[in-house]
Every structure is written in C-alpha cells, then in structure tokens.
C-alpha cells in the first residue's frame, strides 16, 4: 500500500465521522494550546525578570560589608564585627584595571522640606558615577559633580516623584531644600524610570556621599557598586575587589561581592525550571487526550468491524490494518496539534494587548515539545486499538451487520 493512499484512506475515515473526530481534535488542541501558552507565559516571566535586572546596570558588582559564610565551621572565637566599608575603600577599588566605575552608596531616610511642605523620603548618598552605573537618566539639570568624593557639597538631585511632591509643577532647579539640618541646592531631576526591582527610584533625593555620611553621622557605607570594564572582566574585577579590600582591612576577607550576572543566572535558572515544570503539568493534559483517543478509537473499531472484516477479505494483512488505524490516530494528533497551535496564537493575540509590558513570545521548544508529546502519546495509545483491529477474526467481523 502506498503511503499517500494510506494517508488519504485515513483522512477519509477522520472526515467520515465529524463529531467523533471533532471531539478528539478539541481535546488534543486544548492540551497543545495549554502547553504552548503556559510555556510562553513562563518564558515571558523569565524575560521580564531578566529585563528588570538588566535595568539595574550592566556588568555590575555589589560589595557588601560583612562576609556571608557559605562554608560550615566553628563560630569565631573573638569579636567579629565586620569592618565598615568607607569612602576611602570605595576610592581604592577604582584603582583596579578591571573596574571602570565605582559608586559608594549610603542609604537612609530623612525629612526633606521646602517651605512648609515636608516629606520623609529616601536619601541616597553617592557620587557622579552612580548615574552611568545604574543606567539612570536626567530629566533636567545635571547630576552630582564629579571630583573628590570626600567633599560634602550641599547639592542634590531629586527623583521624579519627590520633585513632584515637593515642588509641584514649579521648576526646582536652583532652589533649596532642607534635608535634616542642612540646606541643599537642587541641581537636577531624574527622568521617570518607574520601578527598578522594587525600589522606587522616583521617590529619592541623591546627595554627595560625604554629605550623606555627615547627615546620618556614620562612616560606613551601605554598599559599593562597581562596574566591570566588560563581561569578561567581571571575574577579574571580583578578585581585584576582594584583594584590595583584604589589603586595606589587614588581611581580613570581611566583605561579600555579588556579581549581577551570577544573580541573574540564578534567577534565570529558577524561572526556566519553573517554566518547564508548568509546561510539564500542561503536558499531562496531552496524555489525557491520548487516552481519549484510545477510547474513541476503540469505539470506532467496534463501529467499523464490518469494514475491517472487508479489508481483510480483500487481502489486507494484519500489519496493514494495524498501520491504517495507527495512522488514523496519529493523523488526528497532528491535526489536533495544528489546531492547538492556532488556538495558542489566538490566545496570545488576545492576551498580549492586555499586558503590553509583559513579553509574550512563544519559545521555540514549546510547540516542538507539545507536538512531540501529542503525537507520541496518541500513537502509543493508538497501538492497543489498532492491534485489536488487526486481530479481529474476519469471519465474525463480516457476520456483523
């Protein structure tokens, strides 16, 4: 029997029982659509989170005071209060050839007032380098002046939201705000950037780091941000940072360096696993659809007993009968998969406009995995009915009317 003739024969059989075939296609299509849609949403989540991380800046290293102990061991015998990170430490880090920029950061909260308006907002002490490291953009004016980080110049840059709440629609440039006990001149405002990993960059006032340490009366930094020269330099930068701090802290490794890439890679892995898990759960529905196909094929065979008897009488071998029925269930699976893909695409076309910020792109592997699961399960579950058909006794099959 020629393959095209066999396919045609099965196509006629599928079309010959529209209700039965339609229901099977529906089950298959829903399963396939579920796999593709869930995989797409999972993949979208991954991309969304990755994009959020990237908006922090590129090739970022974060130096935190204190050492995160990841190996076991007895607790230290003597007092182990970690040494503070200081502005001088931050400046020393800039000497590494693998590091392009360094921005020390002090974070605190202080009342900020203009005339009678007062608000408690987040105060960020840093240097001019913060702007490029964090990928921030200015709306008006200029950022903190470059130069000696230990100079506590009385200037500040306001976030979008802070600016709005303190000055309304008036231009804040050149005006003064009171932060704590000091007056700062507003020299710039940040462009609206929205949320950046949960920290609202709109509701801040940025002042020189030395001014912040004076304001909060502390020598220690919250953390130091460093930007490596390139992706390849990240590892070297990390080693350099650790070495420099160790040299400055009398041989103690009392800081932790987190690289943004490592963080990103971890999230990436977690979310990818999650996507696969969700798609896997959806794939269970395909197995259910496969079982449905088996049931319906069994019904089909009892309906078509006489036809099977006839096929045998006109010389069809067992193998041929079996192949025909297997092909029929496979054909149904293929058609169901195609319908499922269309369903998934239609679903995305509806969903995407509802969540424009969320990237919805069908990951390449999901249609392939859905199709493979659909076709292999229905073929697998098609074996039993097909074998039953092939083994039918032609005499009793033909006797049935």
């Amino acid at each position, binding site marked *: 029997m020629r393959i095209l003739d066999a396919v045609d024969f099965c196509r*006629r059989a599928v079309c010959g029982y529209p209700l039965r075939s339609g229901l099977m296609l529906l089950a298959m299509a829903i399963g396939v659509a579920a796999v593709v849609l869930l995989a797409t949403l999972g993949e979208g989540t991954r991309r969304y989170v990755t994009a959020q991380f990237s908006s922090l800046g590129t090739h970022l290293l974060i130096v935190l005071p204190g050492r995160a102990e990841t190996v076991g061991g007895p607790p230290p015998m003597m007092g182990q209060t970690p040494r503070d990170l200081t502005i001088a430490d931050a400046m020393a880090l800039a000497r590494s050839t693998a590091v392009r920029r360094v921005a020390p950061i002090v974070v605190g909260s202080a009342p900020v007032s203009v005339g009678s308006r007062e608000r408690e907002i987040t105060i960020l002490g840093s240097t001019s380098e913060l702007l490029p490291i964090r990928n921030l953009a200015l709306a008006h004016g200029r950022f903190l002046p470059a130069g000696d980080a230990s100079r506590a110049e009385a200037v500040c840059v306001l976030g979008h939201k802070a600016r709005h709440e303190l000055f309304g629609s008036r231009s804040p440039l050149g005006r003064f705000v009171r932060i704590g006990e000091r007056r700062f001149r507003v020299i710039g405002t940040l462009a609206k950037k929205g949320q950046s990993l949960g920290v609202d960059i709109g509701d801040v006032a940025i002042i020189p780091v030395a001014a912040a340490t004076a304001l909060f009366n502390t020598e220690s930094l919250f953390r130091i941000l460093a930007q490596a020269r390139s992706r390849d330099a990240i590892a070297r930068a990390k080693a350099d940072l650790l070495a420099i701090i160790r040299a400055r802290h009398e041989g103690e490794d009392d800081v932790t360096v987190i690289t943004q890439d490592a963080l990103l890679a971890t999230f990436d892995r977690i979310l990818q696993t999650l996507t696969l898990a969700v798609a896997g759960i959806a794939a269970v529905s395909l197995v259910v659809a496969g079982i449905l196909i088996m049931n319906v094929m069994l019904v089909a065979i009892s309906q078509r007993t006489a036809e099977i008897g006839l096929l045998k*009488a006109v*010389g069809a071998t067992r193998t*041929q009968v079996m192949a025909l029925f297997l092909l029929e269930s496979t054909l149904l699976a293929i058609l169901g998969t195609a319908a499922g893909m269309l369903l998934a695409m239609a679903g995305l076309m509806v969903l995407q406009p509802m969540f424009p910020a969320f990237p919805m792109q069908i990951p390449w592997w999901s249609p392939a995995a859905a199709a493979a699961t659909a076709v292999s399960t229905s073929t697998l579950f098609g074996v039993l009915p097909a074998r039953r058909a092939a083994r039918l006794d032609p005499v009793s099959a*033909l006797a049935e009317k």
Partner: protein
Amino acid sequence: MIVLENISRIFQVGGESVHALDQVSLQVAKGDYLSIMGPSGSGKSTLLNVLGLLDRPDQGTYRIDGQDTTALTDDQQAAVRRHHIGFIFQFFHLVPRLTAAENVALPLVLSGVPQRERRQRVHDAMDRFGLSNRAGHRPDQLSGGQRQRVAIARATIMRPTVILADEPTGNLDRASGDEIIAAIESLKDEGLTVLIVTHDPHIGGRAARHIRMLDGRVVEDSRRTA
C-alpha cells in the same frame, strides 16, 4: 484447481463441539461453476470461509493450484486472498464513506497499484457492470442491485481466479437478483471458477455442478445434465 481433503472445522458451542465441517473432501476444477446448497447450519458458509482463507480448518489439507494453504502464515494467506480470490457478500459490505469507484479501487489501493493504472482499471470495471454514471455516488445513494454490482466489480478488480459468492441475491428483489446472477455468470464465461452459496433452488439450479450439504457433510454432488 482447488482440492480439499478431509477438512474439518469444529466450533465450541457451550460445552459441546459442533462439526461445522466434517471430513469434507472436494475438488473444483478451474472454470467450474458450483452452487452449494443446504439448510441453515449445514456448514455451507463455513465451507466458503475456509475456501476463501478467512477461516482455518482444524483438520485436513486445502490446496490451491498444488499449494498447501494451511501451512501459510496469515500474511501469506492475505496475499492469496488479494490475488486469487474475490468475495461477494449478501450484505455487499461496501465502505459507506467511500464512493462506488473508491470502493471498487480498494483492493488495488491495498496492494499498492499506482493511481493512474488504478483509475483505468476501475473505469473499465465500472463500465463493464453498468455503473459508469454511478462512480461518484456513495453506497447509500445506490440501489441494492447497484451496490451488489459495485461489490462484484470490487471482487474482480484484482483479476482473481476464484469468485466466492455468499447468498449474493439474498438481499435483493427478483429482478436485481437475476441481474446479479447474470453478472456472476459472465465471470464464469471468462474462465473464472465460481462458487455460489444460496438458499434459492432457482439460482442453485443454474450452476453446472450442485453440492448439497447437511450437518457439515457433502451429501450430494451432481452435475447438471445439459
């Protein structure tokens, strides 16, 4: 040449063994025209099924042109059915979703004959049995006589040497029945071996050789005296 030697077919019904065929021996020469008659349950359909290799005898040997068919595998038997035997059934057994022409083409499709040759042969067969203007109709759009003619066209499309007809007119009125018998007899005239199982003495009487069965045995085997 068909040779049956001591063929037995035993069915278990309840706790009892029923001899549907009991030591049947029979020789049918090429081109012969046989009718097999007998009451219900006399084993005539079982004999036809054994002859058509749809059923395996429990004992005895069955040779077609010298070849012992009982030793063949299922697939080899299927090949013998495909190439040497054409079936005509009481209930036609057409595939309802296929057109008349497609039903006729079915054995050709199963044996992998290319489409172009198929079309020609089906066309000729439809023509021959007066079905040219019914080629695109489905079985439910055909009369009983037309359906049986489609079945005859299908039975002969592989150019078999033996035609086995099981009550071919059992479901037809007299006029269509006569038509069908005429069509079947035209096959005999071409040198095909024809065996008809029938209840109808009028039809049975037309055959050249009459076999009468009773309780699984051949009780009468006579030739029509011209």
